[in-house]
């Protein structure tokens, strides 16, 4: 057995070669995706081999980065969002880098003034609704969070538990932004009384409970992403002219998540890491983002693909909360929410 293992190990060890390119390791979460051609171009241009370490969801990847900060697993970390930003900065995970491309990125995304973490993309957690359901029942689509507590929407919304799901937490934060820390629990009490359905994870909410997805569940409204309608078109069973779902984009109904990239403290490949970040902020990569990850580019020069233009509504007044506030109160908010809604 040991022999077999040895053979396998030996065959898998990197083979030395004469003009060996350097390796740049990028640590990220499971949802990271990119076009192969773009990566190959970057590799050729900089004589580098990119290695990606995808380690579970955002929280999981961040934990690994924190635990290994004495002996970093990678050179670059991508996928940090604004809810975890302060924690990562407090840990001192990153080295500052003021990329020249930051000029092309609107100020609203540049949350970290010291440029330890640079914004790459953003997405909105929004309520998706099943268009057909509202048509058939002659029901008006709600336009604000408050309206969801009205009787005609009783039992129509499914959401994820903020303790176990990132869109669930984002939606909770949207309500805190809308009603304030003093009043949000009152709102949740009303919403719970109005037949709010809570499940643990996005997969169950979207594929089991939501009627607009392939699962054809009982609830016509679900907490999902603003880009989900576009995905319904792109990943349809047969070609569709129009998405079967849409997002509710009233003021503060959607919570904006921004994702960041940073150079991990202690990297031996600082120059390459900078090149890679510039590459991520460049138009080519930024335009690749929507179709691969179903989020939006922060670079204002990047064009959106047609499916997004047709099917995705970008909220003009998304909810947001200061990263420090989230960091300080995350646990309290979640626990109060659990006490109010679940118990």
């Amino acid at each position: 057995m040991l022999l077999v293992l040895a053979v396998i190990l030996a065959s898998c060890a990197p083979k030395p070669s004469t003009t060996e390119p350097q390796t740049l390791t990028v640590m990220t979460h499971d949802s990271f995706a990119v076009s192969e051609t773009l990566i190959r171009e970057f590799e050729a241009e900089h004589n580098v081999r990119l290695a990606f370490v995808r380690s579970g969801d955002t929280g999981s990847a961040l934990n690994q980065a924190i635990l290994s900060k004495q002996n970093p697993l990678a050179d670059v970390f991508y996928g940090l969002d604004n809810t975890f930003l302060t924690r990562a900065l407090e840990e001192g995970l990153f080295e500052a880098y003021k990329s020249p491309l930051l000029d092309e990125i609107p100020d609203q995304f540049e949350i970290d003034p010291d440029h330890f973490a640079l914004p790459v993309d953003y997405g909105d957690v929004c309520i998706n609704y099943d268009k057909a359901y509202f048509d058939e029942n002659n029901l008006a689509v709600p336009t604000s969070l408050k309206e969801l507590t009205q009787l005609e929407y009783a039992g129509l919304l499914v959401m994820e538990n903020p303790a176990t799901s990132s869109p669930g937490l984002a939606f909770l934060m949207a309500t805190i932004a809308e009603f304030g820390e003093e009043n949000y629990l009152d709102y949740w009490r009303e919403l719970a009384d109005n037949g709010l359905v809570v499940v643990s994870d996005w997969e169950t909410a979207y594929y089991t409970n939501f009627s607009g997805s392939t699962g054809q569940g009982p609830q016509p409204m679900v907490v999902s992403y603003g880009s989900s309608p576009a995905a319904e078109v792109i990943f349809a069973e047969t070609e569709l002219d129009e998405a079967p779902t849409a997002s509710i984009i009233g003021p503060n109904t959607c919570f904006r998540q921004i994702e960041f990239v940073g150079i991990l403290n202690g990297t031996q490949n600082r120059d390459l890491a900078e090149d890679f970040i510039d590459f991520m902020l460049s138009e080519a990569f930024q335009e690749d983002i929507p179709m691969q990850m179903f989020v939006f580019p922060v670079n204002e020069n990047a064009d959106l693909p047609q499916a997004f233009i047709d099917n995705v509504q970008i909220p003009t007044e998304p909810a947001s909360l200061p990263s420090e506030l989230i960091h300080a109160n995350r646990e309290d908010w979640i626990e109060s929410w659990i006490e109010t809604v679940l118990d």
Partner: protein
Amino acid sequence: MTDRLRSLTKKPTWRALIFWLLPAAFLGYFFYQPLLALFNLLISPDWGFRLAELDLNRLWQPLWFTTAQAALSTLLTLIIGLPGAWLFANYIFPGKKLLKILTTLPFILPTVVVAAGFNALLGPRGWLNLGLMALFNLESPPIQFLNTFGAILTAHVFYNTTIIIRVVSNAWSQQNIRLQQAAKVLGASPWQTFREVTLPLLKPSILAGTLLVFLFNFTSFGVILMLGGPQFATLEVEIYVQALHMLNLPLASILSILQLICTLAITLGHNKLAGHQKMTIVPRSQEIGTRKPKHTLERLATTLLVIILFSLLVAPLASLALRSVVKLEASRGERGEITRGFTLQFYRELGVNRLGDLFYVPPITAARNSLIFALITILITITLGILVAYALRQRSPINAVLDPLLMLPLGASAITLGLGFIIVFNRPPFSNFRFPILLPIAHSLVALPFIVRTLSPALQSIPDSLRNAARALGAPPLRVWREIDLPLLSPAIIVSIIFGLTISLGEFGASSFLTRPDYPTLPIAIFRYISQPGALNYGQALAMSTLLMIVCAGGIFIIEHFQATSKDWL
């Protein structure tokens, strides 16, 4: 020197230690080292941990629920599994082989997919609810399954029944039928025979199966989260929430330690109950002692059981597989013309990298990787498992200490172990390998307790007289092992290989930490599809799951076929 060595090997404790050497080193290096390092790092004031500030309610509440649901789930699993074991050990019926393979499949499936399977069957728009609504003209679905305690119990029974069936029916079919016959001629009715002879003789295997099932339920995670819903939290779910969503690693560590202590206590309790019963079995070739059901009552009971097993274990799988080849009309105007009917589109799409994604996984590659990991897991665990089984055969007090330590990986949360691996093995040589060798090692840690619990009783039951006979006939020690032990162990080895295969193929938790994009596994690929919106993604996830089931069923079929045909030389 050699004399001294020889006299040492005569002492049971020394012999046990020699057998333990490799397994203990493996466990120590790959399990205890990372865990201790992690706990040592996290439970310190540097990480903001203050023992005094620990709210004990945050421990007792999940602990209480974890124990209660595990006990209840295990009880239900026994209620279904024991009759199942009886059926498989004693009767021949059409479709037996197929049913045996099918009942093993739930074990490998990722919870996401099982949840989808149950949903297709019992969900608000599952066919059972739709059928009942149509039948009784109901407005709303009569069966509320998802997000209930009942769903947790059902899913646990669904997952774990196979453990009881495999472990117990294996022991049952090896029982000496003369003992039952002796009881009968001494006036014991069939029920008395069962209670007085069969059951006590099955006790060790039932207890072993119960222990494994209980521990699996005790550390349940995905089922609680996805089918139980947000009201329910086991220790493992709390660990997940605290570690990955609250970033409260010290609390997650405390919960992990609590879970490990409980695992240890449960194992010790089991060992005390099981005692050290040495049982001689009469190894039988397959199907001897089994028969067709004869009396009306027997026929009724066996048919009923087959139906229960089919509907409980196979129906959710079948509805899943069916859904992967069927398009459903979406009943929505905007969706254009979607026709209901047979389709292979989801399977075709698996082979297409639509968006030119760097991380696209061809299904064959995922299947190949999964099988490679499974093969390494099997190699490691069978080798170590046989060594441990021989160590446990020695009458030595060190076994009482080392055996429970072997079971602990079953109680370790995948998240904790994954994080421990990151901090300890994030250095050469492991960081140099592109091949994630840590992945099959993690699988081996989980599979080893199963394999030891399968091999050890089988080994104990081989009478020494057979070895002595072979020795007397001139066979040197290694030859004795090959001629006597190995062939008599072969049924247990086959069961072990199946456990190794299924545990490795289905493992997701540790895999998601340790895998590398170059080596995705089938469960990882499934998860990738189902975590994105869109009918096509959903269909592809189901198609990939069906492939996983086919790969696994094929594996089991080949292994069992191999067993049936290779008796002569194995």
